[in-house]
Every structure is written in structure tokens, then in C-alpha cells.
């Protein structure tokens, strides 16, 4: 489920009701507490039961040399699997491929998404048609999008070569061209999501700001750079964060379009191949854990930058 929706954590309401201040555990407060867990409990259990155990299990298994077809040969190797992976050139190559895809797609999506958002923000006509149209790539199954692009670029079935006069050029024959097609498919599918988030940020900028800038003689470019962008920093950061995390976990498009051939394998694909295809459960679990750690690191990095950014902004204004 790669199309996870970002929604900032609904900040736990800090409303304090007058009656709760009086005594810490009134009858009413206790009832509220019980109801709270009664309502949130089932969802909490459903989330933890299915993800908590597998995560811990993966960490545990990653410490073993364990092949599913040879359970007797299971051997505790401590951090051996991690050492194997981190000293393997293949891992670093795939880390590079994954990072490259992430950086290329997310930056292209940001630029393209911003352009889409500007047009949608300004368009007086076709507004409904526009929103409906861009929701199609958002909602479409990633596998379907991957097939559409794989067949489009194919030199047996595709129209792309004909369109650009490329003859029989084989896009999937080389690393760079294959990665290019994967990036195109990813960008097509996820830019709409980015642009909707940016559009929401754009809609929150008061028109007066832009009017004032215009009156003061700011050019269109200056208005974008000095008024629009600084005022939608929060929206940009949220969109970047969620898209980066998603892009780093890219799996579906790779599986369908290249199946990891021509050096296009990504980290998610490596984890899948080790565990499912090669049944090297220990090694595969270690790859999964490393992937999870990397994703968490990216998230932490973003939140750090985001925080300092916001506090700086606040400082500037004073």
C-alpha cells in the first residue's frame, strides 16, 4: 500500500474541562477513560497484533543464519547477517539505486506538482475536470500504472519510440534507460498527490499578500519566490516527507517493469528476493530491518529540519 495518505498527527487536544481540574479521578473522568480505551482499543489491538509481532520477529530472525528449506541448519550468528549485508557491494549499489530513484522522483514531483497546483489554484474554468483528471493517476493501481508505462516504452508494443522517432531503441536494455522509465511511471502516478497537498498550502496564503506584492511592483517570479514559497513551507515539508518515505520503499513498479534486471534492484526488492524467492529468512529479515532503520532515519532527519525551519521562521517574524 504505497499510497499512504499523509495527515499530520491530530495533535492530542489539550482542552481542559473545568470539572477535571478539581479532582484527578472523578467518576466522570474514570468513565471517560474507560470509554476512551473501549473505543480506541480494538483499532489499537488490530494495529499492534499484526505489526508488532512481525517487527520483533524480523529483528529476532535477522540474528540467525536460517534457510526455510533447512530448518535444522538454523544457526545463531548475532549481527553476522548485518555484517554480511553491509560489507556486500551489491547492497551499497542497491542503496545507491534506491536513493537515486528517491531523489530524482521526489524533486521532479515537487517541481511538477507545484506547477500543477498553481494551475489548479488559478483555473477558473475546468476546475472540477482538472481535479477529477488528476485523481485518476492517484487512485489507479500502481501495478496497472507500471504495466501501462512498461508497455508504452516497450520496443515491441509501445508507442513511445514511434512518437520520438527512436526506432527499436530498447529502454529496458540498459540500467539508466530502465531506471528512467521507472522514474517516469512513479512521477506520473504520485505527482497528483503532491500537487493536491501543495494546492491546500497555496489556498491558505491570503490573497492580500499577493496583491500587496503586486502593488509594490514585484514580478511574477519574485512573488513566487518571496511570497508564495515562504508561506507554504509547512505544506512543502509535509508533502516532501511523505513522498520521500514512500519513494524510498519503491517496490511495485520495479517488480513489474524491470523485475530488478539491468541493475535496477532496490532495497525493498532485495528484501523480497532474499526472503521469498531465496527463502534466506535470516538474511532477508536483516535487509528488512536495515530498510526500516533507514526509513526511520529519513523521517527523523525531515522532522529535525522541519522543526528548526519553523522556529527560524518564527524568529524572523519577531
Amino acid at each position: 500500500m504505497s499510497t499512504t495518505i499523509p495527515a499530520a498527527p491530530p495533535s492530542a487536544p489539550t482542552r481542559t474541562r473545568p470539572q477535571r481540574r478539581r479532582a484527578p479521578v472523578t467518576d466522570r473522568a474514570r468513565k471517560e477513560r474507560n470509554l476512551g480505551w473501549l473505543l480506541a482499543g480494538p483499532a489499537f489491538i488490530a494495529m499492534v497484533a499484526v505489526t508488532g509481532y512481525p517487527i520483533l520477529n524480523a529483528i529476532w530472525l535477522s540474528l540467525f543464519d536460517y534457510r526455510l528449506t533447512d530448518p535444522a541448519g538454523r544457526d545463531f550468528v548475532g549481527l553476522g547477517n548485518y555484517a554480511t549485508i553491509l560489507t556486500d557491494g551489491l547492497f551499497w549499489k542497491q542503496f545507491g539505486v534506491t536513493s537515486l530513484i528517491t531523489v530524482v522522483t521526489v524533486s521532479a514531483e515537487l517541481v511538477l506538482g507545484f506547477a500543477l497546483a498553481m494551475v489548479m489554484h488559478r483555473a477558473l474554468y475546468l476546475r472540477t475536470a482538472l481535479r477529477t483528471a488528476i485523481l485518476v493517476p492517484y487512485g489507479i493501481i500502481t501495478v496497472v500504472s507500471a504495466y501501462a508505462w512498461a508497455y508504452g516504452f516497450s520496443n515491441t508494443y509501445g508507442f513511445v519510440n514511434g512518437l520520438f522517432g527512436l526506432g527499436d531503441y530498447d529502454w529496458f536494455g540498459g540500467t539508466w534507460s530502465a531506471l528512467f522509465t521507472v522514474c517516469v511511471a512513479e512521477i506520473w502516478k504520485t505527482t497528483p498527490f503532491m500537487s493536491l497537498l501543495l494546492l491546500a498550502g497555496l489556498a491558505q496564503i491570503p490573497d492580500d499578500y499577493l496583491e500587496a506584492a503586486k502593488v509594490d511592483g514585484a514580478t511574477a517570479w519574485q512573488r513566487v519566490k518571496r511570497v508564495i514559497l515562504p508561506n507554504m513551507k509547512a505544506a512543502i515539508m509535509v508533502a516532501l516527507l511523505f513522498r520521500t518515505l514512500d519513494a524510498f520503499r519503491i517496490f511495485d513498479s520495479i517488480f513489474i517493469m524491470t523485475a530488478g534486471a539491468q541493475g535496477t534492484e532496490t532495497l525493498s526488492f532485495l528484501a523480497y528476493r532474499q526472503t521469498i524467492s531465496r527463502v534466506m529468512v535470516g538474511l532477508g529479515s536483516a535487509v528488512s530491518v536495515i530498510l526500516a532503520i533507514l526509513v526511520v532515519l529519513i523521517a527523523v532527519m525531515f522532522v529535525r529540519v522541519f522543526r528548526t525551519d519553523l522556529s527560524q521562521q518564527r524568529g524572523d517574524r519577531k
Partner: protein
Amino acid sequence: MFWIVGAILIIAYAIIPVLWIVSLSFKEGDDITNKSFLPTVWSWENYRTVFASDLFTTALRNSIGMSLIATTISVVLATLAAYAISRLNFPGKRLVLGVALAITVFPVIAIATPLFNLWRTIGLYDTWLGLIIPYLSYSLPLSVYVLAAFFREIPWEMEQAAQVDGATAWQAFRRVIVPLAAPGVFTAAILTFFAVWNDFVFGITLTSSEAARPVPAALAFFQGASQFSQPTAPIAAAAVVVTIPVVVLVLLFQRKIVAGLTNGAVKG
């Protein structure tokens, strides 16, 4: 004028790849390799092929059944949880939110592989339940966040008024809040359905046969199964079939979907 051109370009951007796969699905014979955007003869041949294939029809049944069940349960649980989170004070609220956030951050593939081992041990491998459960836990954070964002917009004074009039917390929830929250719940249901319908990772890791394999996973196996001499155009047809529900939902509810996607993301 400039904006109109931009708008038309965007619409073209969004639908040309879709039109391409539709067009490919109507090609037959030599047309499939004619490398042009449109077929010379429009044919239903590929649709007849996929609907005559058990591989596709069972996968379609699996996808529809599992998506609807998972979406329904997920949205019911999420509604209750989001209400508690946005309205009630109870210890551990942050824990629930933290777990939800951790799940959205954790890579699906990292969950899928241990689940693969676990499911094989306890016999849930290759069953509907074996897929519905992970769908549930992976779609819950999304529904909880979307719904909590919606619940913040609801005029809560009405609930308090009901409570002043003697309603219990539960009555206030059921009689006053549920009708107000219904649009949000509906939006969460659409977004959850999209997410579950889109699943590929669980579909390929946790199934081994037609018993529970959903369409996206089945599409990937069309090639290996060699059921078709030439699987390209039938895959295109199958891809178009599973895209129809998405397009219908988008056409009917675009306003709600946009609101659901952006609500809370920016304000938070």
C-alpha cells in the same frame, strides 16, 4: 488563456497513459505489435479472454471481497478510535497515535516477510483472512488520521448540549456525532478502499494460489502462467477492468477525496 492551456495539458498528462492501456486492451492480432497508439480494429477479444480465465475471475472475486471486508472493518474501528482520540481524555492516547505513525513509516515489505513465516506456521497463508488482517492493520492508521482530522471540524458544542440535556457520552456519540461525521467516514472509506485495492506486496508474498490472490498480484503472474500465448493485451484488458472502480469513485466523489487527502495534512 495561459491557465486554460495549462489545464488542458494537465488533463492530457493525467489521462493519456490510461487511454493508452485502454487502447492496447482493444487491440488484437497484429495490432498488438503495431506500435501505434490506437488499434486499427477495435476488438473485445481480450476482455473475452480474461473473463474466460479462472485466473482472472477468481482474482477479481478475491480483490472485491477482501477489499470490501477490510475497508468496512477498518473504517468502523477507525471511527471509534478517532472519536476517542479527538474527543476523550484517556491515558495512552499518544501511544495509539504513535503506533499508527510508526506503522505508516515502517516498510510494508519488512512486515510482509515475517508475516509470510508466521502465516505458514499458523495456517493463515494463502487464505482471505491471511490478507484481510494485514490490510486492516495497514489501512487503520490512514483511516484514523483522516477521521481524526474530520472530527476536529465538527461543532462539538452540540455534543455538549446533548450531554447537558442528560445524554450519556455514548448516546451523545451515536445520536449527535455519527450523523455529523458520516461524510468524513465515507471519505475515509473511499481512501481506505483505494489503499487496499492497490495492494501488491501482501498479495504476492502471502498467497501461493488462486485461493486468495488479488488482481494486482494475479496480473504479475499472468506472464509466468503462460495461460495466454500472448499475455500483453489480455493483461491490458484485466488492468482496465480493475481500474474501472477507481475511475467511477473518482468521478462521483472527487470533491470528498480531495478534501480527505488534504484535510489535516496542512493544518496540523
